[in-house]
């Protein structure tokens, strides 16, 4: 026996039940569940144990932007956040629009071996929005979806062609929905607060109008489309209607959009500048409700690390993005689970099983014979978020200085600690 996790509380996000038990791990696999005695045991009493989380939307920045993040630091951060799998967005440099880059990312992930990495290929060559990427070859090289994330696919005909090819080879598209003309170089959600601050606002129609357009194209092509990081009431409504009509669509929301709102930008903090922008307070409540009722399928981090220098610029100049993969679970535990808004099983389901299904990957489950990818979580620990908290190179978080409850104590990946010590 390599190790036995003693007396932990095993949470099952599918059956939505818990039991106090021991988990024995051998050769990277779950050897048994149930009372086990061993000399190699660690006491997990009081800790929750559950399948490691799955992030459908991560920016690892490598290759090309290693000052912001490397795959080493990004995957260390993922493990710190309780994640066992991440899907890497293609906006690296070079862009992941060819099998060479896909294979490089997979090779590096294997080398680092802290977390599963599934690359996402670009829809358009170089994210240019002008011509299609090598969609067929990318699939063969191992991408699980296509996305131009960071940019919308403005040319509707190009998107339609991408949908047709994706549909013919049974692959999904992950769409960043934004009409760049409507968002007009804005920095936060258009509304009273933006006005008061004198900042250019991004109206929610910048997002919802593109979703409306693309749902019409899905209606014609039948392609599987997943809408990234939705952030407003109209988007929810459109997707709810589309699902009711039977269209093959899904969507995600980020932890930040569930837990924070535009009121958190009052100090011109560029660390709260994110695209799409943090929602209004009322939209935030609707996002939470839509996650609870299933209109929003899952939580994805949109982890977007940037250097302090880049974020130190004036808010108009600073890049969009929040370093969020390490705070995702504790933030939602604090803001949604503790107050009883969403139950923890449901949240875990939306952070592990649901995203795996969209990616077409078999989810991690804590079952005999499965890879031992387990997150150990202390629900009682209270702590303040500081820059030192982050293992990511990106410390760009609006949560710095805030207190959270619930901490990842350890993450086990293929039977070995990828984060923490027990």
């Amino acid at each position, binding site marked *: 026996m390599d190790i036995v996790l003693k007396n932990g509380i095993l949470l099952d996000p599918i059956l939505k039940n818990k039991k106090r038990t021991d988990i024995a791990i051998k050769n990277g696999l779950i050897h048994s569940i149930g009372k086990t005695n061993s000399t190699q045991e660690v006491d997990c009493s009081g800790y929750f144990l559950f399948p490691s989380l799955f992030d459908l939307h991560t920016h690892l920045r490598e290759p090309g932007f290693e000052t912001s993040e490397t795959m080493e630091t990004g995957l260390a951060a993922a493990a710190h956040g309780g994640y066992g799998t991440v899907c890497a967005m293609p906006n690296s440099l070079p862009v992941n629009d060819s099998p060479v880059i896909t294979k490089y990312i997979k090779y590096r992930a294997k080398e680092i071996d802290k977390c599963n990495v599934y690359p996402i290929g670009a829809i*358009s*060559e170089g994210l240019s929005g*002008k*011509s*299609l*990427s*090598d*969609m*067929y*070859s990318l699939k063969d090289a191992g991408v699980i979806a296509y996305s131009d994330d960071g940019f919308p696919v403005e*040319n509707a*005909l*190009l998107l339609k*062609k991408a949908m*047709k*090819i994706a*549909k*013919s080879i049974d692959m999904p598209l992950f769409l960043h929905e934004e009409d760049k003309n409507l968002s007009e170089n804005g920095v936060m959600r258009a509304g009273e607060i933006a006005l008061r601050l004198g900042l250019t606002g991004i109206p929610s129609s910048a997002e919802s109008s593109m979703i409306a357009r693309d749902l019409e194209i899905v209606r*014609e092509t039948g392609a599987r489309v997943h809408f990234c990081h939705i952030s407003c009431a109209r988007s929810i409504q459109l997707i709810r209607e589309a699902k009711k009509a039977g269209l093959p669509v899904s969507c995600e929301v980020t932890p930040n959009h569930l837990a924070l709102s535009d009121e958190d930008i009052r100090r011109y903090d560029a660390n709260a500048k994110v695209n799409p922008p943090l929602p209004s307070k009322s939209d935030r409540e609707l996002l939470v409700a839509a996650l609870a009722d299933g209109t929003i399928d899952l939580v994805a981090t949109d982890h977007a690390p940037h250097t302090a220098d880049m974020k130190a610029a004036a808010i108009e100049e600073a890049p969009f993005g929040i370093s969020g993969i390490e705070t995702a679970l504790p933030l939602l535990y604090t803001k949604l689970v503790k107050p009883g808004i969403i139950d923890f099983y449901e949240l875990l389901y939306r952070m592990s099983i649901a995203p795996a299904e969209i990616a077409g990957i078999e989810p991690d489950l804590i079952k005999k014979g499965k890879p031992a990818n387990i997150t150990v979580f202390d629900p009682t620990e209270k702590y303040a978020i500081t820059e030192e908290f982050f293992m990511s190179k990106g410390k760009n978080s609006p949560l710095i200085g805030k207190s959270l409850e619930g901490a990842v104590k350890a993450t086990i990946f293929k039977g070995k600690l990828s984060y923490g010590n027990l």
Partner: protein
Amino acid sequence: MNGNLIDCRFLTKSAVKTIVKKAEEYKSKFMNGALIPEFPGKTVFNLFLEPSTRTRCSFEMAAKRLGMMPINIYGSFSSITKGETLEDTILNLSKMHPSAFVIRHQSSGICYRLAEVTDIPIINAGDGTHAHPSQALLDLFTILEKKRRIEGLNISIIGDILSSRVARSDAELFVKMGCNVTLFGPATMLPDYPFVSNTKIAGSMEEAIADKDVIVLLRIQLERKSGGNISSLGEYHRYFGIKKELLKKKTLILHPGPFNRGVELSSDIVDSDNTEIFNQVENGVFVRMAIFWWLLNRQSAS
């Protein structure tokens, strides 16, 4: 469609058989060294308003072998560039009493419009993405020559189906003659709606190739307009190109040309026994002679 050959839809089965039979007769006569000047002194206008080498030469050769005097008109020299409408050009040329017009144009359906202003027979030598009936007839002739039958054959057409006049004419003709026709290509090059009735779209390249007596390949052009239909010719070849190892020994490969080695098909296939591409070109002249014969005979009969 009395007196014209504009597409394959209105050709009767018996007309097809008559043309094919005549083409066979011309071919065997010619191969035995006979001259066949059946229409001495007759004139034909070849209006090629879109670039073409093979088809234009083939029609010219067919006319000359029959003793006719073809007159070639190309887009850049014609009065078209001087602002005259094509209808007016045809009206003018009709007054010179030619025996036929052969027309190649980039606009789908143009021959139907022109047929309304003239009684001279019109042969469509390719109009936009609509039809190319003489190509379909020569494809049929080539298949018959090798397979000795047509009914019940399994035929695939692979490539840019959506924008191919050859695909449409071939499919119409092959279905009419009792073949099972399958279409395939990248999803962006396939039609959204039923293309030609009684054709089906394959789900994969394997399905498109399996158990086929004949595979017709279409020329792929890397069009950059609106992002193109596929990222590169290399990607096309990898996923939709015909490679030798995929082929059965008896599968015929046809291609209307010009073909790209290493795109629609690998180079070793071009040079293999499967390929009928060069025979298609040879047969094209005899089939076009038979088309002239068919139209000119009908004209004199009426």
